[in-house]
């Protein structure tokens, strides 16, 4: 019996192509790693985003000792730190070598709700109070940068995903309607799109942010930022989808669907939009960084997520002074992570374009 090779579906071919791109795969795993970190932030971080110890202001990354004072290899431990100011008012930290605080795993510390539901007290790692383990150093008020980065990732990374879902649903539907019906509807919808695209993005962002009531709490601010970002983002996509629909609506299978009496809405959803999918996926990947940067920009200016809540943007606002960068360079970590995340999304987007868009592939080969 000869083995019949099942032909690969288009999606499988694309997936194979993507897997072959090592760079993109690496970026994919980095993002998976980041998102897992964000989801399990409470458990993975030794402290909550709010825990502050003012004696550890701008404390450098904690040194983890694996050799004791006799040079013997031991279970890792840390020392508490003492802060003094020198003659130049610089912060000087000395290790207080009187008491060792051994590194502990699955230790009980601050209470939290695991995944927002299950009450828990276990943290993956940490040291006993008053010892502190600040893996990436402390911020101005002596909060653990590592813990805050993990918690901040929840906001910074989710804003991109939720924002993109909202703006792309809008963009697909509006672009689909405009392209399918054409005529006056198209005219009106496209002029609206152009009006939104006409205003420089960041200024529109600032203007819309100013319209949000002052007395919103952080959760409300978070959602209003998502809405604002999606409101800015849908127009560009709607225009392109509309262009694609204009050509798709004259295809035979659309005419056939029409003849069979399908409603317009069903035709748009079932027969037209799926054909724009490969473009949409690429566009989604390439536009997520815009949302992440948008939120960071707002928070950096103090108009986004505000203290005590952490986002990578508002954490980075501490690095706006050259003095702080000079004496506590570790506060640049959130900026580095924004850079990595944005790069990963762009590289994945590029790789997807290579393997999803047949025309592009043809041009390349």
């Amino acid at each position, binding site marked *: 019996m000869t083995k019949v090779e099942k032909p690969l579906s288009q999606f499988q071919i694309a997936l194979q192509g993507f897997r072959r791109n090592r760079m993109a795969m690496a970026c994919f795993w980095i993002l998976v790693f980041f998102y897992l970190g964000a989801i399990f932030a409470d458990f993975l971080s030794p402290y909550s985003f*709010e825990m*502050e110890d*003012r004696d550890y*202001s701008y404390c450098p990354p904690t040194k983890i000792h694996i050799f004791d004072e006799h040079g013997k290899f031991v279970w890792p431990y840390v020392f508490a730190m003492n802060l003094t*100011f020198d*003659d*130049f*008012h*610089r*912060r000087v930290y000395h290790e207080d070598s009187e008491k060792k605080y051994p590194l502990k795993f699955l230790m009980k510390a601050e209470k939290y709700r695991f995944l927002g539901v299950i009450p828990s007290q276990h943290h993956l790692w940490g040291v006993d109070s008053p010892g502190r383990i600040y893996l990436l150093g402390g911020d*101005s*008020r*002596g909060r653990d940068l590592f813990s805050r980065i993990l918690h901040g990732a929840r906001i910074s990374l989710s804003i991109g995903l939720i924002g993109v879902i909202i703006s792309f649903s809008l963009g697909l539907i509006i672009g689909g309607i405009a392209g399918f019906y054409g005529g006056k509807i198209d005219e009106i919808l496209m002029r609206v799109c152009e009006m939104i695209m006409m205003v420089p993005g960041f200024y529109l962002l600032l203007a819309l942010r*100013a319209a949000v009531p*002052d*007395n*919103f*709490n*952080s959760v409300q601010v978070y959602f209003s930022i998502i809405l604002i970002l999606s409101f800015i983002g849908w127009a560009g996509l709607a225009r392109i989808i509309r262009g694609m629909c204009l050509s798709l609506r004259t295809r035979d299978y659309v005419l056939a669907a029409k003849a069979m009496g399908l409603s317009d809405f069903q035709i748009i959803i079932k027969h037209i939009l799926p054909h724009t999918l490969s473009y949409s996926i690429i566009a989604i990947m390439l536009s997520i960084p815009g949302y992440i940067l948008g939120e960071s920009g707002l928070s950096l*200016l*103090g*108009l986004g997520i*505000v*203290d*005590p809540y952490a986002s990578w943007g508002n954490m980075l*606002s501490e690095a*706006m*002074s*050259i*003095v*702080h960068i*000079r*004496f506590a360079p570790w506060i640049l970590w959130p900026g580095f992570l924004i850079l990595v995340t944005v790069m990963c999304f762009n590289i994945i987007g590029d790789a997807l374009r290579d393997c999803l868009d047949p025309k592009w592939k043809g041009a390349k080969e």
Partner: protein
Amino acid sequence: MNLPREIHSFLRIFLVFVFLLVPSVFVLAEGVSPHHGGQLVLATTSDPKSFNAITAKETSTTLVTSYMFEGLTRVNGVTMQVEPHLAESWEVSEDGLTWTFHLRDDVQWFDGQPLTADDVVFTFQDLIFNDQIPNSARDIFTIDGKIFNVGKVDDHTVKFILPFKFAPFLWGMTQEILPRHVLKAAVEKGEFNFTWGIDTPPGKIIGTGPYRLVRYNPGERLVFERNPHYWKKSSEGDQLPYIEKIVYLIIQNVDVGLLKFLDGEVDSVSLRGIDYPLVKPREQEGNFTIYETGPDFGTNFITFNQNSGKNPKTEESFVSPYKLAWFTNVHFRQAVAYAIDKKKIIEIVMNGLGTPQSSSMSPSSGFFYNPDVHDYEYDLDKAREILKREGFVDHNQDGILEDLEGHPLEFNLYTNSGATDRVQMAGIIRHDLQAIGMKVNFLPIEFNNLVKKLTADFDWDAIIIGLTGGVEPHFGKNVWSSDGGLHMWFPNQAAPATEWEKRIDEIFSQGVQELDPVRRKGLYDEFQVIVSEQLPVIYTVLGNTVYAVRNKFGNLHPTSYGGIFHNLEEIYIKENYK
């Protein structure tokens, strides 16, 4: 000299050594005699909005006008006492109501016209007391709706007749005098408010000051040149001022100013506490000196809305009644005061270069400062205890206290989003208030919105903001008297809402008429004690003023009050400065 030979040669070797390695020692010694010439380069972060000294509202404008215009008196930057300036002497009648000023007869405007009594009368009657011209000086010179009577006696004598006694009158006479012969036409045509805007050619702006503006490139620089006909001479008889040219670079932010100073482009910069560790170690190599002149005058405080009024449009209370009950409770405010970690705020926000503040006057303000006021040491347990005594208990165990009626202790705290130090301060305070069981929603908003809330909308719970302070307590009247517009916690009251506000009103109206300094100080001391007990504003910390100045200038006497260049006309550039 008959020194033993060994010592003599030792001395010679020592001198040679000094000469070779530390030439700056000799430079200092040689450059002592003041001389003319050179330039002073400074930086400012904002453009002037006009060159009109009367309608000026912002410091970016007064910065420019202060070089070109002068008052009858001025305040010495070191002694903080009033001294003669354009007026060489004055007399006051026994009842303290009639003041006669004798103007100097050697003062010329930039265009060569002499300064006369007409200019002084014009400045007060046609400009300051002119209803068509908005200006802040009028508020100071109006007492209970009455204004001064200003009259010319002869060309160099002016008489002021006051409606009643006004203790800080000589302070008020620092008001800049403007030229009648230049501006009369504009006032008559009703165009004064638009005169001397930033589009005016610099040569058209006529003052009497030591410097005149010669160039203004918006967003780039302001250039002043020495007024060669300035009236003032040094004690040695030198024509003042010494420095030929002042250049202000207009920069985007203070960090840029700091970098420009370290690069040697700018001669002096005011340092924030956080900048200190970056700049101080370079003092030697950069050839500059850092002056720490003590606590600043600019305060930072938290205040709670005690406004019992209603919005006239919506008939809604500005503050919900149950919140108003907390905020008007002095024990509540005291609990908050105990929860302010001043020591750590100084460490974190000011890098250790700050002073805790308890009194409503700055320790730098000298005579009227009262150190013996009620002090609130950081003590969270005490704060919790006070709240418990006042009936705030956490019934439902959610970490937030409830009042007797069950309202959770939650309020909004605003500050301006631009001020990073204030935002940091607010973060620290919020964290501590949360620790004593208050849920504080921290909301940084844009400065103009914040001012609108304070002065027009009144729909806020708590605000962290600051005020610039001064030496003369009466000039804080718009904050402290209950009908004042800046009486933030309950502005523009028809009648004082509380006994202590009534007492403060009394103190201010008595204080302004009390000419005996000791009795006057007694009144303002009492005022500071009342404020520290009643806590309408809860003070936090004062930054220390720190300046870095290149070692280029002679006759420098930096102070907190006057800054570095308060005696600018006497400052000169050392000859051998490189």
